[in-house]
């Protein structure tokens, strides 16, 4: 059968059309491939640096827990343990194990263990007072330079003047390693330590707790205000110029650089209200300002997605406007509101700049016990570690990034779970 005229024209153009389609598809695939490449590179880099950061080298020493020397006052009090000779006892064992005799050798050997070893010993004693007056195996962290040697960052072949460990220190480390005293284990300092200039002792506990406290404050402030604003604007506010301007401004606020909120917080909460610097309370309030637009926008979208027929149904049986809103619209919009809130909070969790403005970048060793005690947060801790020169901090930075990402994945997973669980159909 001969082709109709239309068919002939269509057939002639088919080739060009197919070509265009293929080009479009290829372009999309290329874009995704590029994105995947960067993602894989990023994850590869973070994981390859970060996973070793979860481990560190420990040395196990047999310590004679002599009560007289460790606890001179005999009451296990902080003062008593501080007055005791924990440091000296450890050094004696180290000198014995290394066999250091000369003055220089003894000096070099003492530097192989972490500065925090005596504190570690006294806390061990405090936790196990029954073990006093016996000989126990206790694990101490190696100094970060010694640690770097075992990681291969400090090499024997490097001339002595150019490396941070002397020949004699390397000799001692090798000797102790041959004796089986050195072990490579999951770093307890990383998870339970706090800010420290000593790389081997630095940990994220303080920052993690600071993050939790800050986000708590942020949620407690931002969620109710955000939801109330969204409900009012969507359900009750008259539609006029003023509400229109408010709406436009809320949408614009979502795009304001976060550091601006930090300056605002500095000016209002700290300078005007006189709240202390560096505390999670102020940090949470600043992040709440930053998160509010996100929460308001997503809550309004959630309210808009509730079908009007539900409102009509409630109004039709004589519910007041407030009842229709509170009994029907808000409960149906809650999943969407929570999802938006969690995404906003996840954004706040990763925020550094505004917190720098209000002083949460301070070097704080103590772990904050409440929202009014100075603290820092995970991303700021990462920012600070990234600034330090020691090799071990490079790895710890990546480890902390992994932990931060895990937090974020957890929160986003929570958002997805909540949405699935609370989702209702009509």
């Amino acid at each position, binding site marked *: 059968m001969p082709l109709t005229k239309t068919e002939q024209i269509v057939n002639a153009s088919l080739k060009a059309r197919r070509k265009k389609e293929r080009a479009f598809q290829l372009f999309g695939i290329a874009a995704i491939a590029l994105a995947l490449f960067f993602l894989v590179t990023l994850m590869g880099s973070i994981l390859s640096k970060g996973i070793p950061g979860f481990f560190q080298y420990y040395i196990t020493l047999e310590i004679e827990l002599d009560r007289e020397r460790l606890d001179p006052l005999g009451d296990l009090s902080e003062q008593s343990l501080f007055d005791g000779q924990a440091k000296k006892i450890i050094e004696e064992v180290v000198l014995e194990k290394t066999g250091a005799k000369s003055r220089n050798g003894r000096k070099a050997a003492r530097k192989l263990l972490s500065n925090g070893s005596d504190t570690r010993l006294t806390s061990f004693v405090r936790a196990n007072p029954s073990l006093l007056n016996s000989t126990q195996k206790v694990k101490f962290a190696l100094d970060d330079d010694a640690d770097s040697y075992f990681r291969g960052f400090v090499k024997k072949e490097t001339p002595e003047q150019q490396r941070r460990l002397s020949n004699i220190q390397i000799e001692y480390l090798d000797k102790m390693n041959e004796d089986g005293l050195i072990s490579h284990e999951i770093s307890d300092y990383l998870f339970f330590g706090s800010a420290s200039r000593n790389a081997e002792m630095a940990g994220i506990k303080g920052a993690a707790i600071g993050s939790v406290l800050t986000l708590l404050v942020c949620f407690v402030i931002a969620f109710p205000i955000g939801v109330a604003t969204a409900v009012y604007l969507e359900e009750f506010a008259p539609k006029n110029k003023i509400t229109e301007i408010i709406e436009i401004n809320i949408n614009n606020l979502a795009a304001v650089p976060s550091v601006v909120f930090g300056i605002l917080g500095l000016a209002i909460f700290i300078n005007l209200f006189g709240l202390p610097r560096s505390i999670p309370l102020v940090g949470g309030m600043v992040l709440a300002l930053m998160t509010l637009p996100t929460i308001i926008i997503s809550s309004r979208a959630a309210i808009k997605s509730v*079908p009007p027929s*539900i409102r*009509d149904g*409630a109004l039709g*049986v*004589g519910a*007041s406007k407030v009842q229709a809103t509170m009994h029907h619209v808000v409960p*149906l919009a809650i999943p969407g509101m929570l999802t938006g809130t969690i995404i906003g909070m996840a954004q706040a969790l990763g925020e550094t700049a505004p917190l720098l403005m209000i002083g949460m970048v301070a070097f704080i060793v103590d772990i904050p016990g409440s929202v009014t005690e100075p603290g820092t947060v995970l991303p700021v801790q990462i920012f600070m570690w990234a600034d330090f020169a020691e090799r071990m901090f490079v790895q710890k930075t990546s480890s902390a990034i992994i932990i931060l990402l895990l937090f974020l994945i957890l929160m986003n997973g929570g958002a997805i779970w909540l949405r699935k669980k609370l989702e209702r*159909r009509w």
Partner: protein
Amino acid sequence: MTDIVETIVNCDGVSVFYGENRAINNISIDIGKQSITAFIGPSGCGKSTFLRTINRMNDTIEGCRIEGRVTVDGQDIYDASVDVVPLRAKVGMVFQKPNPFPKTIYENVAYGPRIHGLARNKSQLDDIVEKALTGAGLWAEVRDRLQDSGTSLSGGQQQRLCIARTIAVEPQIILMDEPCSALDPIATSKIEALMSELSNEYTIIIVTHSMQQAARVSQKTAYFHLGNLIEYGDTKEIFVRPKDPQTEAYISGKIG
């Protein structure tokens, strides 16, 4: 001509405006108690708008303005002293699309009595729910699944659930805005039978696109065209001997 025994809704010179647009033009109508009145007319003729003025559902529409006087039971419902909450408890409404709340069947029906405080305790509430569901002809079908979601029912059942929800607060008037337009013929016939039954107790005003439906269920019919009330009278009269040529054109299928 069956006369109106007792007027319950009286409209006098009612006009409705959406902004500058006049949707309803100077309508006066009396609606009798315990009867079924049908509003018919082509799409966009204002019959739904007019229906929604009777329980002030138009209040929720931005820029909607009403002139004239509407009285229910002798009370001017647009008077400043009138609260819409008791008004809507008295004048219930069933919508075009079944719109049960995404809650259990029980909660759907119990919602109205609960917010108005009609039941003093759980067993009273149970009685109200059973009575309303029975009244809506749904009790036998759902008695064993009161805790299922209202949205799990079929379309026709959902619409009857909405009727049950409305009659649970014992209104005097039920407004029905094309209640069967989303339903199949079997569900429609069930709703129509239900309407006839309900009209013994309630005044029903129904907006419908189906002239057969108006002819089947209503005692009085009002024909609307372009915001005007063209003709109002006994349903039999309107369908058999329409006085107005426009009405005749519509019911004979010439316009619509």
